[in-house]
């Protein structure tokens, strides 16, 4: 979506997706808190100007979280740091 693009109204989106109005409202509130959208009272919600940047950041955060999960999992099954690093390198090579 483009910056300043108008989002559908909360009620319309809830109706179309057949989900609760309150759930939709909360989703918008959370997007606003993250700075991805902004709301003009009486007009609606719009995509923020720097949303792309923020999205990038939150994706990086997600990546960090997933890697952290992997580290914890490795510890719990007794895989050493060195083995984990080696495994990661192998996987990276396989991808490319």
């Amino acid at each position, binding site marked *: 979506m483009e910056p300043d693009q108008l989002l559908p109204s909360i*009620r319309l989106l*809830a*109706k179309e997706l*057949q*989900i*609760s*109005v*309150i*759930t939709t409202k*909360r989703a918008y509130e959370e997007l606003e808190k993250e700075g991805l959208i902004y709301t003009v009272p009486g007009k609606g919600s719009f995509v923020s100007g720097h949303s792309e940047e923020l999205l990038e950041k939150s994706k990086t955060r997600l990546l960090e979280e997933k890697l952290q999960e992997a580290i914890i999992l490795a510890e719990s099954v007794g895989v050493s740091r060195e083995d984990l690093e080696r495994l990661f390198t192998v996987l990276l090579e396989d991808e490319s």
Partner: protein
Amino acid sequence: MKPILELRGVSKKFPEFSLDEVSFSLEPGYIMGFIGANGAGKSTTIKLIMNLLHLDGGEIKVFGLDSRQDELEIKQRVGFVYDENHFYEELTIKEMTMVVAPFYKNWDQQCYQSFVHRFELPEKKKIKTFSRGMKMKYSLAVALAHDAELLIMDEPTSGLDPIVRSELLEILSEVIQDERKSVLFSSHITSDLDRIADYITLIHNGQILFSEPKDQLLENYILIKGGHDLLDGRLQPYLVGMRENQFGFEGLVTNKEQVQAVVGGKAILETPTLEDIMLFCTRGKVV
């Protein structure tokens, strides 16, 4: 905002069953799921709202009006869909509509026709030949044609196939679009409400166990599965209900952080469904 429906300390005594201080309220523009086991008091509560039963104590306000004194005014603005047919079986819907339409000041024949068309209801067949789904759709068409601001539906989906149920849910989400109308929907099929309901009210043995936004419920409660060794008493303060089996247990807990600290990685924590919440809240701590 002023509630469209408000129950305060509502009580009703029967020899074998009583409703005890039932209180909850619903604002315009939302759908409330009213859940509970068979015999929990859902229909009794709905009948009291409709003034079909005498109220023993407490107060019911619909559109801010008293359910007993202003019954006629209220009924003009309420659409009632009951799980059983309450129309004359020997009539066709065309004839039946000629009987009921004049009772409503706001009757909109065009709107009625459009729903009959949309629901594909045969106008020339007797109501007794209708399937359950068709009867429910007819009640709904009547309710919507008099521009009801509050739809009260008592088990509207019981005995209906998934296609008709999904059609009904679609219509309900359309109904609340204008932020003026609300729906009170009683059901023991909680999967109907998992998506669409904004609020959930759970009744058990004539008492309200909770009446909260659905999202809040799904966040406050966590489904936990683990081995017997976790049941050493430390989980006790957070357990709402649980069931032990030969290999472990399954239960419902609150306070996610504290529970996580107690169990570490030794249990599976999941988001519950409404059905899980209903089951464990009504079954209690069976140990």
